[in-house]
């Protein structure tokens, strides 16, 4: 089965996930609405802030709209479709990879796309709405926005899987993985000019927050092709690191006797 076949398989998994999520309509809808409100409150904070101050480290309200649009859409895309990316550490520690290992599919896409986030659909919706606020509705801007956001989503998801795969080496690292993903997101939600020296270096390498916030904003705002290429390079590198860490780790997988179910 080639790449097209694999994509068709992932498409089937997503349809199945959607059907599974819709089994509980009230929960599905309330989580989406809840996340929309949650993001909205955070957004209002910035609106109030820029009502008093015109600019913070080169960012005005226009860049904040864009930053929110990129961030929430990237987060929403990553964890709505690759819902298991945030669960990898727990799945490894509880011996829940057995199901994937007995089936003839490449384990990583099968694992990652076997669950769909619910609340993250709210992020996805919020991202689209926030982009409409930027007023950049010409085709080039939309194209750059979609491309940069997709790459940021890849970096988000691969980072989550890589940190989750540390469970192969250090036992249950679910908390650590969760903190690292939160750090990745939190640092991305502020103007990059706030960070200097070592902090800036960390956010460009170990915790690559710059590539899910500042760099995509730069791609859309300045129509910066170089930044887009850089973003693509980081996304590819991030995917390579994920595959490498996971493959090495899988040799150490110990399974387990926990009783599992596929939701």
């Amino acid at each position, binding site marked *: 089965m080639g790449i097209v076949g694999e994509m*068709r398989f992932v498409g*089937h998994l997503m349809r199945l996930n959607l*059907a*599974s999520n819709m089994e509980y309509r009230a929960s599905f809808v309330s989580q989406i609405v809840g996340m929309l409100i949650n993001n909205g409150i955070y957004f209002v904070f910035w609106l109030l802030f820029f009502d008093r101050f015109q600019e913070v480290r080169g960012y005005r309200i226009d860049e904040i709209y864009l930053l929110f649009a990129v961030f929430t859409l990237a987060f929403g895309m990553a964890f709505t479709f690759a819902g298991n990316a945030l669960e990898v550490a727990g799945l490894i520690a509880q011996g829940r*990879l057995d199901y994937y*290992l*007995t089936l003839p599919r490449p384990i990583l896409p099968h694992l990652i796309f076997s669950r769909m986030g619910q609340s993250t659909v709210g992020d996805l919706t919020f991202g689209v709405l926030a982009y409409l606020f930027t007023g950049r509705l010409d085709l080039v801007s939309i194209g750059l926005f979609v491309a940069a956001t997709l790459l940021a989503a890849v970096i988000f998801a691969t980072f989550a899987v890589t940190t989750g795969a540390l469970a192969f080496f250090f036992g249950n690292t679910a908390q650590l993985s969760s903190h690292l993903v939160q750090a990745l997101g939190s640092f991305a939600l502020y103007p990059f000019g706030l960070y200097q020296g070592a902090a800036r270096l960390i956010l460009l390498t170990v915790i690559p927050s710059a590539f899910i916030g500042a760099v995509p904003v730069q791609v859309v705002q300045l129509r910066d092709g170089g930044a887009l290429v850089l973003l693509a390079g980081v996304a590819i590198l991030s995917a390579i690191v994920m595959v490498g860490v996971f493959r090495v780790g899988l040799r150490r*997988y110990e399974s387990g006797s926990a009783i599992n179910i*596929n939701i």
Partner: protein
Amino acid sequence: MASIVLKDLRKAFQVKRKAAGLGGSLASLGRPRYETVEAVRGISLEMESGELLAFIGPNGAGKSTTIKMLTGILHPTSGEAQVLGFVPWKQRRELAYHIGSVFGQKPQLWYHLPPIDTFDLFAHIYELDRKTYERRRDFLVEAFDIRDLLEVPVRKLSLGQRMRCEIAASLLHHPRIVFLDEPTIGLDVVAKQQLRDTIKQLHAEEQTTIFLTSHDAGDIESLCERVVVINHGQVIFDDAVKVLKRRYLRRKVIEVRFAEPTNGHLDLAGVSVIKLGRYGAKLELDTSSRPIETVIQDLMAGHSIVDINVMDPPMEEIIRAIYQRDSAFEPVAEGA
């Protein structure tokens, strides 16, 4: 032709040890203590195509660890294994097209969706064309009698119904070997027997190689021809089921409940009374001295019975008997 060949297969795990309580946890935080536990200790065996082999042993004997190495889930610490000519942990995906597996405690069916959705997903996973898939699915639906269950969410199915659907799902791609890990765990007597009958029928019709693990001696008695018993990660018995039965499965325990009170006596030839109450009794029988049917007939002739239960000796007892026989201190005499 051999389907499975194992040579001195071993698997060891590092297990963390910690003293009880908060003090133990604090000590473990500063200086964690690990111990190597050998779950599988040099298993060698061969299994022919079309064979129905029972791989049994008590909890923690290494059954599941072995099956996980044979399906490519775990990498062994040392040793060799070939399943259908593939090295499972190196050629996991190639092998997966030819094997099916059911782990009693790890369902494959999607919990919130009906079985038919997982069946469709498996058709994608195994790249079955629509017609082949539908033909096979319809055949299995009939064989396992699950037509009425296909569109019911899995969470609403009983354990027995779910297990029939699980096994049907694992057979959709016509596997050459099926690994069944504790398929009857948690099932009641009727559901167990129903499942055993279907497995037996399918094996007879399709000649699929079946590798069955269980700690229920009843599974082995009614299903398999050959049995491998393992304990502490080592093979301690590998022979025909009839040999195991003749040597170690002769003892049956009968629990019976009466509709009316007994007179305090229960005399049945060749049967020892373990416990006798006003409305019930626990009896023990050596089937080599007397067939169980005649004992039940005698019981029914003399009493009004509301419930009766015939049990095999627990796996621990069989293993103890195997060790006793091998150590030659207390040989178990062979029956007729």
